[in-house]
């Protein structure tokens, strides 16, 4: 494994970069460092943002400085252990049919598989949340099998419906609110990943894992009604390493 590098991001953030490509092992090191840094309670840290291959440490320059943080983080990296961390595993229902999946046929054609097989492979294994970004509560998950390595749409959609499940470049995301987007839409979940009026507005965090559970259009509709009525709570469990 290569040595992480420190990159400056002005005087209020520091980047610890573990690699340049999308790689599950690299991402695990990022999240492991995020966890340790959070536990260390270093003074002056404002936020710790794990991304796919680097960690951004936001800090208050009136309390600490890049040099102090770099020294503390270097020390942690020196004692880096590759052990697994505990994580939260979510079961998320997804409808992969009809209006919920406008790009599924094209994706299947591109992957040279039938649609049922695309769905089976998308939902086969729990996927890790590499990072949260783009919009509140918006997770990036991976890595999907290699055959999902297809580029983004040539032209992004102006409006992606909220709760769309999308894929591109071996990753999958959930659009938390209606917004523009350039990924392929292969399903939709009835579950809200971001609800500002809920006690916990944001459902998931980086490091959690999600298992997608295919549901038929009818079940999707009834689950959606339950969510809207406030009678549904997403299922999750804590998994020890």
């Amino acid at each position: 494994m290569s040595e992480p590098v420190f990159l400056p991001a002005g005087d209020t953030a520091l980047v610890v970069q573990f690699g340049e490509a999308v790689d599950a092992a690299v991402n695990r090191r990022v999240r492991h460092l995020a966890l340790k840094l959070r536990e260390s309670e270093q003074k002056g840290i404002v936020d710790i943002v794990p991304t796919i291959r680097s960690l951004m440490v936001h800090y208050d320059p009136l309390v600490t400085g890049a040099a102090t943080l770099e020294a503390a983080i270097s020390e942690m990296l020196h004692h880096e252990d590759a052990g697994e961390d505990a994580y939260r595993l979510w079961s998320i229902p997804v409808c992969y049919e009809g209006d919920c999946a406008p790009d599924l046929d094209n994706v299947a054609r591109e992957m040279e598989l039938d649609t049922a097989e695309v769905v089976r492979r998308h939902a086969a294994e729990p996927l890790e949340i590499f990072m949260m970004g783009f919009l509140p509560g918006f997770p990036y998950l991976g890595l999907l099998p290699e055959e999902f390595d297809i580029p983004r749409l040539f032209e992004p959609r102006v409006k992606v419906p909220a709760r769309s499940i999308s894929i591109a470049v071996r990753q999958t995301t959930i659009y938390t609110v209606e917004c523009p987007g350039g990924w392929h839409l292969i399903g939709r979940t009835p579950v809200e990943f971001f609800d500002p009026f809920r006690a916990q507005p944001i459902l998931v965090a980086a490091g959690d894992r999600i298992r997608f559970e295919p549901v038929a259009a009818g079940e999707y509709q009834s689950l959606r009604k339950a969510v809207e009525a406030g009678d549904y709570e997403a299922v999750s469990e804590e998994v020890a390493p």
Partner: protein
Amino acid sequence: MSSLKVIQAGFAPTLQDFGRPAFQNRGVPVSGALDPVSLRIGNALVGNDGGVAAVEFRLVGPTLEVLAESVRVALTGTRSELIVEAGERVVLPSYQSVTLRRGQRLSVAPVADSGVAYLCVEGGFDLPRVFDSLSTYGRSRIGGFEGRALQEGDELPLRLAEVEARGELRLEDLSYLEERGPMRVVFGPQRDYFTDESAAAFLTSEYTISREADRMGMRLEGPALEHARGYNITSDGIVTGAIQVPGNGLPIILLADHQTTGGYPKIGTVISADIPRLGRMKPGDTLLFEEIDVAGAEEARRAQEKEVLKLLGALSPAAAWLDEAALYRENLISGVVQDGEIG
């Protein structure tokens, strides 16, 4: 309920405080004041802590009507004047607190000298905080008043129904509004994605802020920068002041409402001490960049903090604006009540 009623919205005003910097790990943008220094000064003038949410606006401010016994306000970020309609029209300077009474209306002369201005009110607004902040983030419809810019007819609930009668305050030295000079930039995190010629051109060329400038970012017009390693990176974190350069080579400086992560390479980052000044710039203004290292940037921020604290300590008593008609009415009414009690 005591409130300020929006009679005319002006140009998309929002409520802003210091934002929500601690929730970026969940994808929540920071938001908050584009010019936190002017927000702090405005709050100090009305006796608040520095980070109480105020109305932030640009170009054309809102017209508000006081639906409370009294409210103390101050305008900052601009030298434009505060206009009070109290039977007659009274023009008052910015950077001075003033107490208004029920039924009076306030508005602001067109703001031409600054990209952003603040109307601070004593006690602040009685609205729900979202992720520890009152800042409006319109794209996700959170914070502020119903998660959106203010509109005609909105009634902004006030925490105080009435303010104490006490001396008004003003700030005399407005020299911080006149600071000029290049925007200081720390190169990175992706300086290596650009040719050396481009990095040199970036430091020697004048850039103009385009009309496509909002709370999320400022697009710049000027020499296009050349990428040495393409214009896609694996998305990483973004900090306020980051200068990202998409495929067309034209830099975009990311401001308070920036997304938390992004996939364009960032040639450098405007230092935090220069962010308030950047926030006050407007489309058509020109700017130059100057390189500084991280240690120098951190030192610049400490120096700026000293200057701000000096300004906050230098508030002086202001001549009260005597709303004589209102005073007369008040005396008359209290006189009647007293007579009744004695009788």
